[in-house]
Structure formats: C-alpha cells, structure tokens
C-alpha cells in the first residue's frame, strides 16, 4: 500500500512539473506592458537628467551624452589619455547610437496592432520587453558607479596612477554592463521590426529618402554589437588588455583589435556623421537587404567564434599562450582565424558595399 502511494505520488508529481513548465512559457507580453516599461525607462532617465544630457555626438543629436565623469576624468578624456578616452569614444558613442535606434523604433512598435502580431512577433515582443526591463535596472548601477568614480577622483586623483586605473577599470565594468544591455535592447528592437512586414513593404514599393534612412539605422543598430561585444563585453569588462602578457598569439589578437578599432572609426563616419543618403531604386533596396541578410548570418559565426575563443580566459589564465590554451580549447585557433577573417575582410567589405549603395 505504501509503495503504491509512493508510486502514485511520483507519477502525479511528474505531471505537475510538466504542467507548470508547459504553462510557464504561455504568459503573453502585451504592447501595453511594453509601453509601461518604456515609460519606466523614461522615468529612470528623467530622474537622472543631470547625467544623461542633450547634445551632439559626431553630428548626431542625442539625449544620451553623459554630462561629466568629474573634472579630472573629463580633462583626461579631452586630452585623449589612453584608458580614459574610451569612456566617450567607445562607451558613450555606443550608448548614443543604440539609444537613438531604440527611440526611433519605439513609436512604430507601440503603434502595432496587438491582434495582428504573428507568433514570431509575440516571441520577439517578450524578448524586447525583458531587455527594456534589464536595461532600466542597469541604469541605477551605472549612476552609483559614476558617483563613486567622481568621488574617488575628486579626493585621490593625485595619489597613484595604478589606483586611478583600477578605479577606472571597475567603473568600465559597470558602464560596460549598462552599454551591453543597451545594445541588446537595440538589437532586440531591430529583431522585433524584422518580424513585422515593414521590410517586405520597403522591398516592394518605391522607396523614399526616409526609407533609406530607416534601413541605414537598422543596419547601424545590427552592426553595433560586433564592436561592443568584443571591445567592451569580452575585453574591457574582464581585463586591462594592454597589461596582459605577450604570449605567442597576442600579436595576432592585437592586430584584430587594431582593425576593429579602425573599422569602428569608419563605422561612425559612414553611419553617424555622413548624412546625405540617396533615394534608392527598388532594385537597390532589394540588393541592400540581400547583402545585409547574408552579412548578419556570417556575423553569427563571428559571435560564435568570439564567445568560443574566450579572450579573457586565454589572456588571464593562459597568458596569451595559444599552444597551452589549445589543450583546454582545441578549437581556439579556428575561432581566432574566424575573427581575423571577419574583422579583417568581411566587415569592411560589407560596409563598403552598403556605402556604395546608399550614398550618391
């Protein structure tokens, strides 16, 4: 009797577990919930309006310039001091571009008809909503981190450069975490747009100048994580790269990082500073989408390689010695070769091809 009861209980438990797991995935996210969460994000910005200020970034009007990092750090940024200038030229630049894209898509997405959302759109909506919430939550950490940084530099800046750099690196981790979530928000916003019929319409109707801008901004948003995931998430968040040991593969990785830095400059020039994109023909619009689609599939291989290589492990645990790292990660060299191919060739080829199409 006891055994019977035990077996029956086990069987019923299994069914309960499956029911709960099955039902857990069924909770729908609505556009009104997304709107609410965007409003919470606006409130977070408003509550910190002395930090996120209006201005212009390399010709792009924005509401997301970070006003200051304190007098000492601001001066070092202005002077182009290594280790400091990235706060503006990489971190804030990425934040501005990603936030700009989120803002420009927001009204379009919130104006969609709830009833007409496809299954894909609903899934994308849930992911987008989660990323709005995650990003909003990261802002408070950033505000606290910034306050700490300003406090430290106002009191101890003259004492030790080693300690200064340590504080900057700690702050970069917090800043980088916020930027990563911001870029993810922009990417998920782009994914939600992909699930609507807007791009199909753009391919079928006669495009306007505004349509070229829409596609340009979409491509810009999709390109951002290529830079931020390596430079910020993989490298700056985990280590001070310039202080890492000179192992057998460091020159190779240095070359990839250098090419990526140069590409980021071109990226900003082509997708932020340059303004006068032309009105495309239907054929040109179709071709632009085709090459973009192909490129972003290859970009997935780039991300697979980036995460597969794990630069921080290679640098910190193996002192950039590929020969030793291969014993733990047999495919590490393959991943590094993909990064070289993608950053060295595919990324530049794609941007050139896009510029050839969208600019007169």
């Amino acid at each position, binding site marked *: 009797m006891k055994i*019977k009861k035990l*077996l*029956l209980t*086990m*069987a*019923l438990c*299994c*069914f309960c577990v*499956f029911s709960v*797991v099955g039902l857990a995935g069924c909770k729908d996210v609505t556009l009104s919930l997304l709107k609410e969460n965007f409003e919470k994000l606006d409130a977070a910005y408003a509550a910190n309006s002395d930090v996120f200020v209006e201005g212009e970034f390399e010709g792009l009007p924005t509401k997301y310039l970070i006003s200051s990092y304190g007098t000492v750090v601001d001066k070092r940024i202005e002077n182009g001091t290594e280790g400091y200038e990235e706060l503006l030229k990489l971190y804030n630049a990425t934040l501005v571009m990603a936030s700009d894209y989120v803002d420009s898509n927001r009204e379009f997405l919130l104006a969609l008809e709830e009833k007409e959302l496809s299954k894909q759109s609903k899934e994308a909506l849930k992911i987008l909503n989660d990323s709005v919430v995650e990003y909003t939550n990261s802002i408070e950490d950033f505000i606290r981190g910034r306050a700490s940084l300003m406090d430290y530099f106002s009191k101890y800046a003259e004492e030790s450069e080693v300690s200064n750099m340590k504080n900057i690196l700690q702050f970069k981790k917090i800043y980088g975490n916020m930027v990563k979530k911001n870029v993810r928000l922009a990417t998920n916003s782009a994914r939600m747009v992909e699930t609507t019929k807007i791009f199909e319409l753009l391919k079928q109707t006669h495009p306007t100048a505004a349509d070229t801008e829409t596609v340009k901004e979409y491509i810009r948003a999709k390109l951002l994580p290529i830079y931020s995931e390596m430079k910020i998430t993989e490298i700056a968040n985990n280590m001070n790269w310039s202080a890492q040991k000179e192992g057998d593969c460091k020159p190779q990785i240095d070359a990839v990082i250098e090419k990526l830095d140069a590409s980021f400059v071109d990226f900003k020039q082509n997708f932020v500073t340059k303004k006068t994109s032309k009105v495309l023909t239907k054929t040109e619009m179709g071709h632009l989408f085709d*090459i973009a689609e*192909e*490129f972003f*599939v*290859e970009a*997935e*291989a780039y991300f*697979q*390689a980036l995460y*597969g290589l794990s630069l921080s492990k290679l640098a910190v645990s193996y002192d950039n010695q590929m020969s030793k790292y*291969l014993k733990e990660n*047999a*495919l590490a*060299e*393959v*991943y590094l*070769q*993909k990064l070289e*191919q993608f950053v060295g*060739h*595919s990324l530049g*080829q*794609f941007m*050139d*091809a896009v510029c050839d199409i969208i600019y007169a």
Partner: protein
Amino acid sequence: MKKRWLILIVILVIVAIVLAIVFINLFRDKDTTALAKEVNKVTESGYLDENNKANQDVDKYLQSMLKLSDNLEADYLATLLKTDNLSAENEKMANYANAYAAFEVIGQFYNRQIVFSKYTKVYAQQKKQISKNFSKAQKAVDALETYFVEQNVKIGNADEWLARTWDDCKVQLQQLFAFTSSAFAGLNEVYKNCVPSKLVNNAMSDIILDEVNGMTKNIADGQADFGKKLLTFANAYLSVAGEQVILQHSYNAAVQAAAKDIKEKGAESEYYASFVAGELAF
C-alpha cells in the same frame, strides 16, 4: 481493484519517463562541435598536419623515391619498382607528394569553417562516415610509419633497398588518398548543406569544392599531373589568402558571373581553363 491501481500507476510512470525523454531531446542543443573537433584533430595534430612526424616521414620517403631515377639505371629501377612503365610510376610518386600537400590545405579550409555549421539531417548522416574515413586514412599512415621503422628505411641512402619498398608502400598511400578523398567528399556535403553563411558558402565555393572532389578522386590511381594541379588549385582558392575569391562572391558581380558560367557550362565555360589552373582573378 488493487491490480487496476497498480497498472494505472505503472502506466503513469512510463508515460512520465517517455515525456521526460521527449522534452530533453527536443530542447537539447544539437552540437556540431563534435565533427569540427575530429577535423581539427586530423589537421592540427594528425596525418594532415604538416608538423606531424608521420606526415613528414611520408613526404621524405616520396622525395627520396623521386630522386632514385638520378641514381639508378632506368631498367634496373623499373625492375625494383615492379613496373613496366617507369615514367608513369615516377609521375605517380610526384602526384602523391603534391597531393599530400594539397590535402593539408584542403583539410585546413574545412577546419576553419565546419565548426560554424548547423545541425541538420545531412550533418547527422555524414558525421560517422567522415570519421570512419579519416580514421582509416590515419591507419594507412600509421601502417607506413610502422613499415618504415620495421624496415629501418634509411631515407636518402640504400637506393636499391628503398626502391624495393615501393610496391608495399604504394598500397598504403593509395588507401591514404582514397579514404581522405572520401572524407573530403563527406565534408563537402556537410559544408554545402549545413554552413548557413552565404559569405563563405555560395556559388563560388560550390564550384571550387566540386572541382576538388573531382580532382581528389583521381589521386589514388596516380593519373598524370593531378597532384600538382590539385596543389595549385587548393592554394589558389582554399588557402587563407586564396579563399578571398569565395568571400568576394556576395559583393563582386564579376565573381558571381564567373561562378554561374562555370556551374552552367562546366568545361565549355570561358572561365574554366583559368579556373582549373588556379588563375581566376577579379
């Protein structure tokens, strides 16, 4: 009554276990790194690694065999090699030497890309067979190494004695090339059907890998000049520098036109001769 309850419980437990297995298999990530690691092992430390000892010994052996014609009288050498066509036999040796070098380049190309494939039916079907073929090819190379050690081959010396080893070594070499060619044919199927990126898997890579397929089939029987042609072709399009022509396909109308023309017309294409010679330039 008691029996009915027991039966019900047993049925419920079985159904729960089956559901659990179904759910686990549905959501488990289908991993394509297994094949990538096999290819990596063969090309980075196995017989297709140019730094591998067995690889180097086979190359030394073939280079030494090629020098025999300088040192031994033709008729006598033909007798030792057990051939009635010395010139063809020498060509075979040259083919094998060049083909081995070409196979390294081809192996490295697949090594760079296969890890980025998606799990599909083709992947699942081909993986085991590719593995088996590489394993058999490795065994052929290992057999050669064992033979070299057992026979105490003095590379570069004892010409007569060296010539007498050819008949035995030839068999293993043919196996090496036959099985490696089969492995590459399988990898070609996986590449075409499972690598999702059109930047690296496109009409240009199709014709290149199909041509490699055709060329490698001829290596085992050592037909005229195929080794050298294959090496030139592999270096031209599948090395790190050479694969640029594949990467250009999405952005270069001339590359697209050439790939299309060769695909449709084959040897009749205006581009075919330069393509096969490794001289397509854009």
